[in-house]
């Protein structure tokens, strides 16, 4: 155990190593560690935020879905109401149309009946006149008694 120049050499070497470590090694590594710590904290906070936002989004989506469902139900109700209305209207219209058609047909029938009656009357009158002409050929002047015969024919 003898001391010699090695002692001084070791002291210098030690000092140099410490100086180098302090100057070039420690700071960058600790800085990287701190930076990573900050990054991780940030990431965790972001994850927490994202989680929160997701929850909110889910709640909102649920609300929107419920609203949409309610709206859809309302629309369906309205449509059903409108459909039954349309059906009722159509029924009524059809009924009215039917009645109108029936009335028109009746009127036409009446008209035809009248016309036929008129014709018949005309023919009967003619026949009566003709018959009377034949009977009264000699005695009656159609010109003198025409009005009388016509009035008579009209009473038929």
């Amino acid at each position, binding site marked *: *155990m*003898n*001391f*010699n*120049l*090695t*002692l*001084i*050499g*070791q*002291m210098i*070497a*030690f*000092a140099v*190593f*410490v100086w*180098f*470590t*302090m100057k*070039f*090694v*420690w*700071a*960058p*590594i*600790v*800085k*990287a*560690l701190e*930076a*990573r710590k*900050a*990054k991780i904290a940030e990431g965790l906070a972001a994850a927490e935020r994202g989680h929160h936002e997701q929850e909110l989004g889910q709640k909102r989506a649920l609300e929107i879905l419920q609203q949409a469902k309610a709206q859809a139900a309302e629309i369906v109700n309205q449509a059903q109401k409108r459909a039954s209305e349309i059906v009722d209207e159509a029924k009524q219209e059809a009924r009215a149309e039917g009645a109108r058609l029936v009335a028109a047909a009746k009127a036409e029938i009446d008209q035809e009946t009248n016309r036929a009656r008129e014709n018949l009357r005309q023919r009967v009158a003619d026949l009566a006149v003709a018959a009377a002409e034949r009977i009264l050929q000699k005695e009656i002047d159609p010109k003198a008694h025409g009005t009388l015969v016509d009035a008579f024919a009209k009473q038929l």
Partner: protein
Amino acid sequence: MASSETLTSTEYIRHHLTNLTFGYHPEHGLDFAHDMDEAAAMGFWAINVDTMAFSLLLGGLFIWFFYGVAQRATAGVPTGRQNFAEWIVEFIDENVRGSFSGQNPLVAPLALTIFVWVFLMNLMDLIPVDLVPWLATLIGIHYLKIVPTTDPNATFGMALMVFILVLYYSIKIKGIGGFLGELTLQPFGKWGMPFNLVLEGISLLSKPVSLALRLFGNLYAGEMIFILIAIMYSGGLVLAVTGLFAQLAWAIFHILIITLQAFIFTVLTIVYLDMAHQKHH
């Protein structure tokens, strides 16, 4: 072992505990020392080439590894190497935060350097005692101690630097008056001044001495036991087999010791510097 046929056990042990010393010998001039006595005769102006070479090599390894990490340190996903370096840095950082209450950017890097460097130097103890010296013999080097921490020059070198830092910061923080006051005015007040000075002086001086001797003693003893076990290999089959198991057991136990000693040196350095920074005692 390689030369145990030609050496007695005592010579073998002596051989293993001799540094490769280069210096000026009064009789042989500037040369490597050929034995312990010659090394002693060279006095202070000689240098233990093996201690210097291995400690610089290991310190360089430490610097290379951590500087490489520091250069490419990212806050993103760390690589395996960065991860390992960060693990050690965080371990040191935690200890410094726990034991050191002041504000000083020197302490943490100092602790990191001590811990890793001392650990690496201690780690050389786990290399079989004869392997590297035997290889060195092949290229003509006859003495080689590969564990720098078994050389008191290395441990005292570090302890003295720590001691200088302790003195520097004591005076810087407390002022010369405060520091001297701390040395003389307690624990017995100003009437017990001489007694206080002796007590506090011893306590102050014991810091670097205990720091250096603890590390040196542990590693020197550990190395000694490895050497003694190695001697068993030349004592016949039974002793050799026993030696094999003894070496294995001691090596495993020694892993604990070398880490522990590096850690103790580091923590005590932090604590001593913390005491130097504290104004109130």
